[in-house]
């Protein structure tokens, strides 16, 4: 199992390398801002979609064009581009997830354009028939634009095949999470995050192969009583979590039993219905997706969802990690707080602003653990 995890770690440690190799083989690569890009459509066009998760390297070039009070994801992705590190990309897709991503698109195009530049103006409402129709038009627009760009017709059949492959990967990731829920001590949290992150950065077919191998040799749930405190982590809604933070949680006596992270259950929980016409199925997937703070859908409540994760994993506490300057979840936090408190579930709120002060975070985690052990 270690060897396979090592393979994933190589991809994650140098997130652009695998995609560059794919490009060198003469195939197209499309960078995607997180969350609302139906990657299956890009896959069906014969290109490789990768998620742009930023960089931990310091931001400097971007400050020529941006104020400092913008989230890390936007700053650091733009930094990568200005430094020329994304020049191998054939294109980039910006889904409308928030004001920052919406606004960076036009700035980006002025300073560092790629041959393919596409905005998916994702509706902010996900609760009406009209928004469903509009999302369908936006996804159709992406498909048409990709067809023009790649001179490759995306057939219903190829789209169905891509959806099946993506669903396959989602199912394997769900299986991994089931195993972890049954015995959270089986996997280190950093390894689980690495496996999910790798899925966003490498061809799905390869990810499926590696993950299948891993699951075959995964250890079975142990019988020994576990003295570690079960935790659910939530937040990091469009970025990868710092692996060091996950280490710290384990270091102070916690064990992550489940998560509500973008690089986590949010990425793979919702399958695409393979019985529906494919574009319609993709639209449905986003409408029915896990509750998302960037979208309005009163039928899908974030607090209900988070509580259900806590219940199913029998966690003792929740750690909510939100990126500094990220507005959408900030408006929901007082509500989450109230609902968790009403259920008697302790939580810790950490505002994340890279570069992190790990010492400070550690102190707060230790204090939180004290509360949970009481």
């Amino acid at each position, binding site marked *: 199992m270690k060897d396979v995890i090592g393979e994933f770690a190589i991809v994650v440690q140098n997130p652009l390398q695998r995609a560059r190799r794919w490009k060198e083989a003469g195939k197209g690569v499309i960078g995607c801002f997180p969350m609302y890009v139906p990657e299956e459509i890009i896959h069906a066009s014969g290109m490789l979609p990768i998620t742009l998760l930023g960089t931990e390297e310091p931001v400097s070039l971007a400050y*020529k*064009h*941006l*104020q400092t*009070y*913008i989230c890390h994801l936007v700053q650091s992705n733009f930094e990568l581009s200005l430094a020329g590190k994304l020049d191998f990309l054939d294109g980039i897709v910006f889904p*409308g997830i*928030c*004001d*920052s991503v*919406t*606004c*960076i*698109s*036009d*700035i980006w*195009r*002025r300073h560092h354009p790629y041959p393919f*530049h596409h*905005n998916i*103006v994702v*509706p*902010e*409402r996900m609760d*009406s*028939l*009209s*928004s469903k*129709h*509009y999302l369908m*038009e936006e996804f159709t*627009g992406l498909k048409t634009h990709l067809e023009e760009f790649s001179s490759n017709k995306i057939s219903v059949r190829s789209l169905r095949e891509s959806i099946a492959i993506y669903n396959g990967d989602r199912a394997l990731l769900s299986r991994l999470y089931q195993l972890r829920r049954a015995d959270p001590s089986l996997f280190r949290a950093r390894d689980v995050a690495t496996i999910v992150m790798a899925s966003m950065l490498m061809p799905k077919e390869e990810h499926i192969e590696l993950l299948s191998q891993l699951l075959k040799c995964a250890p079975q749930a142990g019988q020994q009583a576990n003295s570690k405190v079960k935790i659910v982590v939530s937040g990091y809604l469009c970025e990868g979590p710092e692996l060091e933070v996950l280490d710290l949680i384990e270091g102070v006596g916690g064990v992550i039993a489940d998560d509500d992270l973008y690089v986590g259950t949010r990425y793979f929980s919702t399958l695409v219905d393979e019985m529906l016409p494919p574009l319609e199925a993709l639209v449905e997937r986003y409408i029915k997706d896990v509750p998302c*703070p*960037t979208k*309005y859908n*009163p039928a899908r409540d974030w607090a209900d969802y988070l509580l259900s994760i806590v219940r199913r994993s029998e966690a003792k506490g929740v750690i909510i990690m*939100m990126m*500094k*300057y990220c*507005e*959408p979840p*900030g*408006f*929901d*936090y*007082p*509500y989450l*707080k109230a609902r968790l408190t009403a259920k008697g579930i302790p939580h810790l*709120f950490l*505002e994340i602003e890279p570069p992190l002060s790990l010492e400070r975070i550690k102190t707060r985690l230790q204090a939180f653990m004290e509360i949970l052990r009481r």
Partner: protein
Amino acid sequence: MEAKIRPLNTQQGQVKLINDYYGKGKTARERGQLLAWGSGICAAELLSAMDIYLIFPENYAADCGALKVSTEHCEVAETLGYPQDLCSYARNQLGSTALGEKAKSRHGPLPRPDLLLCSNNQCSTITKWFQAVSREFNIPLLITDVPYLHGDIDDERFNSVLGYVKEQLKEHIAFLEQFTGRHYDHDRLQECVALTRKSAQLYADGLRMCRHIPSPMTAFDGFINIFGIMCLRGSEESVAFYEQFKAEIAERVAEGFAAIPNERYRLYWDNLPVWFKLRDFTTKFISHGACVVAASYFWNWLDFMEALDPSQPLDSLARGIIQPYINHGLEYKIEWLANCVEEYSIDGLVMQSTRSCKPFFMGQYDIIEAVEKRTGVPGVIIESDMCDLRFHSDAQVDARLDAFFEVLATRRRDRSG
């Protein structure tokens, strides 16, 4: 002695309008009238036509900002768990509502709404804010979801945007009919749309008179007198107010009155007004003989309202609501400002970067660079906020502006020399 400028006489009349407006909000329930809260640039006429009283928390925040009580409200919101980086208009309302009768506003806390109407044609933050309000009061929220107009939009996509917005307005009407138990009144909507358009035209006419050299008023007068455009939409009172507004400015033009004595520089103001610092900025500008003659801020409403057509009220509301300046991509903004520089004979761009308003501050570096390239006019970024005083540093802003006025002076000398 502190330098002052002469306020518009018309402004006196606004005091009563504002007090009446908030006063009537408090008694709406007693009168048996439903009360809604709306976002600044929402499809307010739909509600006016249904006889629903409409309150705008953004105007309330500006009012709290001008009286410098907003920061305290913001701090209360932060104790509830709202992060400090969220929109300060939002934090102002959330905090003041939590304070209840202890709210610091001269109008007291905002009256409890029965319904909410908002549109993300200004930012996507607004829907989050209103969602929080909707949860707090457990009341329905109507969102008019307005897709952002990036520069690469073609006709087909534009039509799809328009279709989506129109469809939602119809959904809103269906909801409102059920909610109020009344039928949608097409004639009444026509009237409201016509009145809104009329006031917008009068206000815009007045603002456009700032093209005169010297300028008869400053854009700050425009900020102060925007109340009716936002809060009294679809009303006769608003039309009457802006008739006076326009007439007074026309009179000033006829007299050759200069808002800033010895006008030397004509400036453009970007982003939101800094409500708690309007006077200090004015003093600063007077000391340099500078007059702020234009601002994009107004056109968030006016581009919407001037597109209204009473003969097609619903269609034109849909067309208008997607039009605010701020709902457009960067190329549009650059083009818009380059034209503005020409039309208003502008010498410099003051780009206020409101920390808590991303759609307004993102792209400001690009706008300065591109507009200077096209027009030769320089710009400066100053960092502040519309109503959170903690985000403003006098020393920093002063230093930036002084350096900027030196640039302007050098350019002026070079040109005349």
